[in-house]
C-alpha cells in the first residue's frame, strides 16, 4: 500500500487510487523494426532489486499518468515526475545518487535496453 505523490494534482495518493503501468521510459518500436527489437519493446521488462522507474496513473484522482522512481526492496521513493519525458529529470537522478552512490541512469538504461 504505497503512497505516491501525484505531480499533477499535488495529492499524496494511496495505492488504491492508483493504477500501476509497469516500467517507464520504454521506446516504442513499430513498423520497420526487427522482430527482436519489437519483442524487447513489447515483452521484456526490468525486474530490478533496487532502483526502478515505473509508470503510474492517478486513476481514481485526476486521471493523469506520472512516473515514479523508487527502490523495490526498501520501498523508498526518490521522487515522482511528469510522464512526458523520455528520461528521468536531473533532480530525480541526483536524489537517487544521493542515496545510492555510484548509481547512474545510463547504466540502468543500458541494462534496460540491452
Amino acid at each position, binding site marked *: 500500500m504505497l503512497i505516491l505523490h501525484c505531480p499533477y494534482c499535488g495529492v499524496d495518493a494511496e495505492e488504491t487510487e492508483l*493504477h500501476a*503501468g509497469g516500467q517507464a521510459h520504454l521506446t516504442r518500436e513499430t513498423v520497420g523494426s526487427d522482430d527482436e527489437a*519489437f519483442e524487447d519493446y*513489447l515483452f521484456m521488462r526490468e525486474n530490478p532489486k533496487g532502483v526502478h522507474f515505473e509508470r503510474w496513473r492517478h486513476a481514481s484522482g485526476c486521471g493523469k*499518468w506520472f512516473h515514479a522512481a523508487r527502490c523495490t526492496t526498501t520501498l523508498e521513493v526518490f521522487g515522482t515526475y511528469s510522464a512526458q519525458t523520455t528520461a528521468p529529470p536531473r533532480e530525480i537522478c541526483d536524489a537517487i545518487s544521493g542515496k545510492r552512490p555510484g548509481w547512474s541512469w545510463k547504466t540502468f538504461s543500458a541494462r534496460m535496453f540491452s
Partner: protein
Amino acid sequence: MELENLQREDVLMSTRLAAGGRLLNRGKSVRFEFNGKHLRGFDGDTLASALLANDQMLMGRSFKYHRPRGLVASGAEEPNGLVNLGKGGRFEPNARVTTTELFDGLTATSQNHWPSLDFDVGVVNNYAARFLPAGFYYKTFIQPRAAWKHVFEPFIRQSAGLGKAPKDRDVDTYEHFYAFVDVLIVGGGIAGLQAAKTAGASGAKVLLIEQTGHWGGRAPVDGAVIDGKSADDWINNTLDLLDKMENVQVRSRLMGAGIYDHGYALAHERLTDHAPSDDMPRHRLWRIRAKQIITATGAIERPLSFAGNDIPGVMLASAVRDYVVNYGVSAGDRTVVVTNNDDAYRTAIALKGAGLDVPLILDARASGGGALAEEAAALGIRIANGKAIASVKGGKRVTGVQVCAQAGEGAVLEEIACDAIAMSGGWSPVVHLWSHCGGKLIWDDAHAHFRPDADRAPTGADGEPFVSVTGGADGAMSFSGALANADETARHVSKRIGRKAKKATPPNADDVEMAPLAPVWKMPQGAGIKLRSKMWLDYQNDVKVSDVQLAAQEGFESVEHTKRYTTLGMATDQGKLSNINGLAVLADSLNEEIPQVGTTTFRPPYTPISMGSIAGEATGERFQPLRRTPLHDWHAGNGAYWEPVGHWRRPYCFQRSGESVEDAVQREVKATRDSLGLLDASTLGKIIVKGPDAGKFLDMLYTNMMSTLKPGRCRYGLMCSENGFLMDDGVVARIDEDTWLCHTTTGGADHIHAHMEEWLQTEWWDWQVFTANVTEQYAQIAVVGPNARNLLEKLGGMDVSADALPFMAWADGQIGGFDVRAYRISFSGELSYEIAVPASQGRAFWDALLEAGAEWQVTPYGTEALHIMRAEKGFIMIGDETDGTVIPQDLGLDWALSKKKNDYLGKRAQQRSHMADPDRWKLVGLETLDGSVLPDGAYATADGTNANGQRNTQGRVTSTYHSPTLGRGIAMGLVLNGPDRIGEVIDFPKTDGSIVKAKIVNPVFYDPEGEKQNV
C-alpha cells in the same frame, strides 16, 4: 468399545477454585451451552476458562489422527481449542475458545470428530500413523491412479477441514474505519502502555491497541511490582493518565493484524463478540496510516518436545498460571512442571499458593534454576535438576509421567502420578508484525529465540525505518527491562517524527535474578525413534519430531519446503507454538545452526480475521455501484429479466406474464424483424475526441482510416492492442472538422477511454487532442425494423428519408419535439436508427416512441434478441468472437485494416510470423445437420491426438443461438482455414459423449445482400 474403556480416566478433574481469578466478576453468573450441556461460568471468563472450570479438558480431535486434544494455551496461540460457535446466522466455525469471551446464552459445539467428541471412529488413523508419514498427501499422487480415486481421495476429503462452513447468511454487519496517526502502538502490555505514555508526552497523535479485553499483558499474572505498586495499580494509573491526554487514543479488543508498505496497518476490532447485539457492527476493520509503528506484541511460550506431549492435560506453564491467577481455575489437582528456564517456576509457585499440589519440577538444566527455584524449594516443592519426561501416561487425560535423565536416551527412573503437566521451553518474541513488511530477525543465543534486528527494520517512503519493536517482542525478558526499553523506543520514535519527549525516568520494577535458559529441542536428548514419533510439534496438524526428521532425510532442506511437505505450522495457529521447535529439529537433522535454517515467512493476518470484516459494508446491494440508464426504471417496471454488463444492468429480455425467458427472446426478435423494435442502447460507450490532431490520433487508434471520414458520416472501426489483438469495435461519427464521436462496446467505455488517455499522455503528448467520456450524458435508443421510419415520421420533425439520412449517415435535428442526434446505423440488419437525446429527456422520448409505435406493435427488446439478430447477420461481438487471442484477420475483417496507413496500434504485431500465418482458425457460420443448437464453446475435433493423449481440435463455437427467423440453430465459430472449407461437415462432440455434425457455411445467415438495412 474396548478402545473407549482403555481411555476412560474420569476421576481426574479440572475445576474452579474457591477463591481467586483477577479477571472474574464472581457476583455475576453466566449460562452457556457446550455440546448440548447446560453449563455455568462467571462474567470475565473466556470460553476456555469456563470449560476448564466445568472439567471439560477435551476440546476436539486432531486433524490427521483424530487424537484427543485438550487446551494447551490461554491466548491467541491456542492450537486445539477450536469450536463451532453460535447458531443459524451467527454460526461460526473454528472459533478459538481462549480468545472467546463468555456471555450469557453462548452456545458452542466441538468439531472434527465423528460420531462424538468422546468416541471418535477416525481415531483408527492413530493406529495407521505409520502409513500417514510426512508428505503423505503428496505421496498419494504417485501411481497407481486407481488408489488415488478409490482410497486416498475419499479418505482425504472425509478428513479435510476442521469446522463446517456456515449454511445461513450472516446476520451481523461489519464496517471499515480509517485512521491516520503519528504513532501506532500494537500491544497493551506494560511495554505498550509505557511507550504510549512516553510518545503521548511528546505531543504525537498516538493510537494504542490491544487484542484482548484487558490491559497489562502478563505482568499482573507474573506478580510484577512497578514503582512500588502492584502491576494492576500501575496499569490503572497509566490508563487514567493516557485517558487525560487528548492526543492519545486507547482501544482494546483491537488486534493488530498486519503491517504493510509505507506505514499502512490493518487492525481487527471485535465490537460485539463478547455481547452479541443487532445494534452495531460485529467487527470493524481499521485501515490505519501511521508515520511510525511500535510493536509491543510480547512473547509466546514454547512447548517442549517429549513423548506424549499432546495428551490432554499437558499445557504451557504460562497458561496453567493464567487460568489459576486470572480465572481461578485449576487445570488439575497434581501438576508436574517441566522446564528449561526459570519462568516456569512461577507456575509452580502460583499453583502452590492456590493450594494445589506440585509433586515435582523437572528442570532439564543440570545446573538448575535461580532465585525462583530457591523460592519454590522453600515452599517444599521437590525439584529434580537435569531430569526430563521420558513419556506421558494417559489417553484422553494425563495420568502420570515417567521421569528420565535429559542427557540420556529415556531410561525410566521413576513414575509420578499427576493429572496435569505444565511445560516451558522458553519464550519466543512475537515477531510477526515486525516481519510482515520486511523486518529481518537475528538469533539470540542466550534466550534461544529469534528477535527483531533493529538494524534491518522495515523502511518507509523516505528510506528510514518506520517500525520499531519494544518489550518482550524485542526479547526484553524482565519487567524493568521491558519498561526501560519501551521508554527509550518511544523517545526514539518521537524524534523520528520531529517531536521531543520530555526527559523522565522510566518506571522501575523489581526483577528477580534469572539463571540462564538451556535450549532443549527434544526431551530426552538421545530419544530414539519410538519416543520421537510421539513428540508433537504441531498439535492441530499432527506433525511430530519424526516427521520433520523424515522430511529432512527425504531432501526437504529448505524450511519453506519442509513446512509444506509436513504441514508444520500450516494449522489455524500458523505455527505460533510449533515454528521454532520445528526448525530447531530441522536444523539438528541437517547438522546446521538454527539461524542458517531460518524461519518461514510471517504473513498477515496475525490471527485469522473474519471475512465479514474484510468485506465491510460492501455486501448485497452495496457490493458494487450499480449503473442505471435513464430508462432503468421503465425496464424494471416492465418485466426486465436483468443481465449484468459491467456495472450496468441491461434487460436480457422483457418477460410477459406466463412467458418463459426463451419465448420472450424469440417473440422480441420476430416482432422486430416483422415490424418494429426498440432497444435501450444508452450503455454503449460514447467518447468525444477533439482537437487539431484528433484525426491523426484516431488513425493510430483504429485499424482503419478515420481522418478521411466526412462530417455527417459514420464508419465502423476496429481497435487493436499494441500486441495486435482485437480489443474493441464500434461506430465512429465525425461531428465536425476537428471532432469525432467514438462509440465503444458497453463494457469497453471506461477502459477504451483510459487506453486513449494512456497513449495521449505517455507517447504522443505533443499532439493536440482532448478526449471526454460522455457515455452517461445521453440516452440512446435504437429504433429498429421495417416500420422504424414510419414511427419517426409519425412523430415528425427532421427528414429521416433515405435520401436525407442514408445508411451510415447521422444528423442533428428534432423528432417529436425532442432535440436528437440520429444515426443511420444497424446492428440487426434491419432498417434502423440509433437516436441520442440528452439523458434527462431519455425517459420522455422512450415513452413517446412507445405511444406512437403502438399501431405497429412496438416491442422493446433486450440484449439476447440483440445478440441473435446480430448473429443472424454474421456481425461479430467483442467477447464472443474475440477473447484476447483473436486478430481482425481471423474474423474476415481484413477490409477494415487500412493498407494506406504506415502505422496503427497493432500493425507491427500483426506482421509477426504466427499472426501472418495463413493457417489460422477463422470465422465461419456453422449449420447443424439436424437443426439443433450447438453447445456454446464446443470444440470441433480433428484426426489424431496431441502429446497429452487428447483429441486434436480444429475449431470452436463462439456464438450459438436458436434463430427464430430461420427456425433452426445457427452458430458462428473459428475453424482452421474455415472460409476455404465452405460446405464441409465437421464433428462437435457434446459433454454427454454424443456428436453433433455441422456444415461450414457463410457466417451471414440473413439478408446477405443488406437489402433490409439499406432502404
